[in-house]
């Protein structure tokens, strides 16, 4: 209740300030107009100098009628644009970038961020501190400046975009550091651009999902920049080779996660250990459900989470090799993992190397659990081998021109069961895995038998062919002999 009243008051205050600012702009503007020798009418100005700009000329995208920032309420000419568009150097570029940006299209103009008076064509008046001109806003103030509009629910409603970016940002690592006075951290404009802000759905935008990894890497791959924070700079290189990077950047699969999918965008920070299962589960719903059935999911913080086995930026396609080290590990002393008899700890560092993201990194080689793990792995390997053998036989038969559709259906069944069995490993329940691998093996063996029958049939065909060719050869020999005899006969007579 109290918050509401405060909000109302704030709004009123904002309105007052706005009214004051509007007057402050209109009055000097009016003076300027009155004193200039031949005041151009707004329409003329628009047709003569201003390049066509839908945002500024179409009435349905008219500038906001009331606002906290310095701008005129009616459709007045944007004199900043008029001059800057024709200036040499970066200015012209800035003007045209702005013109193509979301802000340019929505009529959010120069003065909305930079202050000043766009009504006057007198440079000194337009960019005077009295007209509220602030020039380039300081980095520290930018989140608040953008948030000034973007936090306003009413104002953003027509664009159907969220309004929580500012508070989210303030919670993010970037925002916290900025508040502490560190202006090297990312601010709004670092990601979205300043004059050239584009919608995230625009493939040209730096914040479009396809570009996000490179956007983040602009800073995060910069060793000099990351050095004071002690952060690694190889995430992009690693991510690019991961299944996710391959899918998003290689195959352009928009559903694959970019940096922001796991770290958040405005609230960017690394997911914590108690968040990670949900973060991955955003997409891997089925796997999350299976994982939550497991014992791993029930032992709290010390438990292995998704990243314990799969890694983070470097996630690659898992296989049966993920169960155990190629060489059996020497059993470690108890103190390595167990604090006392009842608790144990998991140091993330132990799983840093992909080589160590395996069951036997934690589980004793002689434990009961290990026999289960080995059985699970063997079941999967056997099913995979049966599948491979069936596939080879089918391919062999197909290459010999046999029709293999029926065998391929069985192979698909086996494939389905193997994929499901692999997913079910997350439950850590051996019987659930073997149930499916048994199905897979059964289907694969049936498929193989079918393919073998076809291969046998093919062998029969080839043998029959040899016999038939033999018969034909005998016939030809017979006919040639007959011909020979005929010739002799006709010569003789």
């Amino acid at each position, binding site marked *: 209740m109290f918050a509401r009243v405060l909000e109302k008051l704030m709004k009123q205050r904002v309105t007052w300030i706005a009214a004051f600012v509007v007057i402050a702009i209109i009055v000097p503007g009016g003076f300027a107009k009155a004193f200039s020798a031949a005041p151009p009418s707004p329409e003329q100005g628009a047709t003569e100098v201003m390049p066509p700009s839908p945002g500024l000329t179409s009435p349905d995208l008219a500038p906001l009628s009331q606002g906290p920032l310095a701008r005129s309420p009616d459709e007045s000419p944007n004199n900043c644009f008029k001059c800057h568009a024709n200036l040499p150097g970066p200015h012209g570029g800035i003007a045209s970038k702005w013109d193509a940006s979301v802000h340019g299209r929505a009529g959010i103009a120069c003065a909305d961020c930079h202050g000043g008076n766009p009504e006057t064509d007198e440079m000194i008046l337009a960019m005077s501190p009295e007209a509220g001109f602030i020039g380039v806003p300081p980095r520290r103030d930018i989140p608040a400046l953008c948030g000034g509009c973007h936090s306003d629910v009413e104002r953003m409603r027509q664009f159907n975009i969220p309004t929580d970016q500012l508070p989210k940002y303030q919670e993010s690592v970037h925002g916290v550091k900025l508040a502490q006075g560190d202006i090297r951290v990312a601010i709004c404009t670092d990601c979205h651009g300043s004059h050239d802000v584009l919608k995230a759905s625009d493939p040209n935008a730096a914040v479009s999902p396809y570009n996000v990894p490179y956007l983040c890497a602009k800073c995060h791959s910069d060793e000099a920049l990351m050095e004071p924070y002690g952060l690694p700079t190889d995430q992009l290189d690693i991510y690019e080779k991961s299944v996710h990077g391959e899918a998003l950047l290689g195959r352009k699969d928009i559903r694959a996660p970019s940096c922001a999918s796991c770290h958040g965008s405005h609230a960017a920070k690394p997911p914590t250990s108690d968040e990670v299962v949900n973060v991955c589960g955003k997409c891997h719903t089925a796997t999350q459900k299976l994982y939550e059935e497991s014992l791993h999911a029930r032992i709290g913080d010390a438990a292995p989470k998704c990243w314990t086995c799969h890694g983070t930026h470097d996630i690659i396609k898992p296989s049966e090799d993920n169960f155990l080290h190629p060489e059996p590990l020497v059993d470690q002393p108890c103190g390595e993992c167990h604090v006392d008899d009842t608790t144990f700890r998991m140091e993330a560092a132990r799983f840093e190397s992909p080589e160590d993201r395996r069951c036997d990194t934690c589980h004793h080689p002689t434990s009961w659990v290990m026999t289960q793990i080995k059985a699970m792995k063997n079941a999967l390997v056997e099913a995979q081998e049966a599948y491979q053998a069936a596939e080879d036989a089918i391919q062999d038969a197909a290459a010999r021109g046999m029709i293999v*559709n029926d065998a391929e259906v069985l192979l698909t069944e086996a494939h389905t069961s193997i994929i499901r069995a692999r*997913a079910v490993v997350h439950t850590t329940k051996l019987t659930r895995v073997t149930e499916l691998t048994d199905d897979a093996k059964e289907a694969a063996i049936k498929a193989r038998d079918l393919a073998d029958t076809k291969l046998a049939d093919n062998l029969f065909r080839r043998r029959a062919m040899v016999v038939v060719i033999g018969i034909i050869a005998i*016939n030809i020999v*017979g006919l040639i002999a007959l011909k020979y*005899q005929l010739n002799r006969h006709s010569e003789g007579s």
Partner: protein
Amino acid sequence: MALGLKNVQSKENGNRRSFLKWLLGFGIFSTIASVLIPVIGYLIPPERGSTAGGGRVLVGTTLDIPFGMGKVVQLGNKPVIVINTPQGITAFSAICTHLGCIVDWDAERQLILCPCHDGLFNPQTGAVIAGPPPAPLPPVPVSLEDEEIYLGEA
């Protein structure tokens, strides 16, 4: 002497001629056999195997697939999921468009579910609702006569 030579020659000739006759006889016989065996084999109707079919196939009754239930059946050698939805019987190819797993009926959610990666499909249209499948499930013509469900076009 001359007579003897002629005799030998004609005997040789006779031998050769009978061999030739035998050869040609064998040739004709074996040719006919190697044509007739496949043709007769072809004419004997085979048992309709798994790849047989065509036209309409009876895949079950509404007793097998009661209201709100779905079932994967074989059409020819392709798995097809048949669903008894409130809008009537529908059928789709049961091969998931993601990685080719065989989809299943999720009675709890009343959706077609691919168990491999949790792809969900609309039971009325086959459209993807959630998950990784890149394309909808292709529909299969289905018709209901009294209680009997037929796949394939009428």
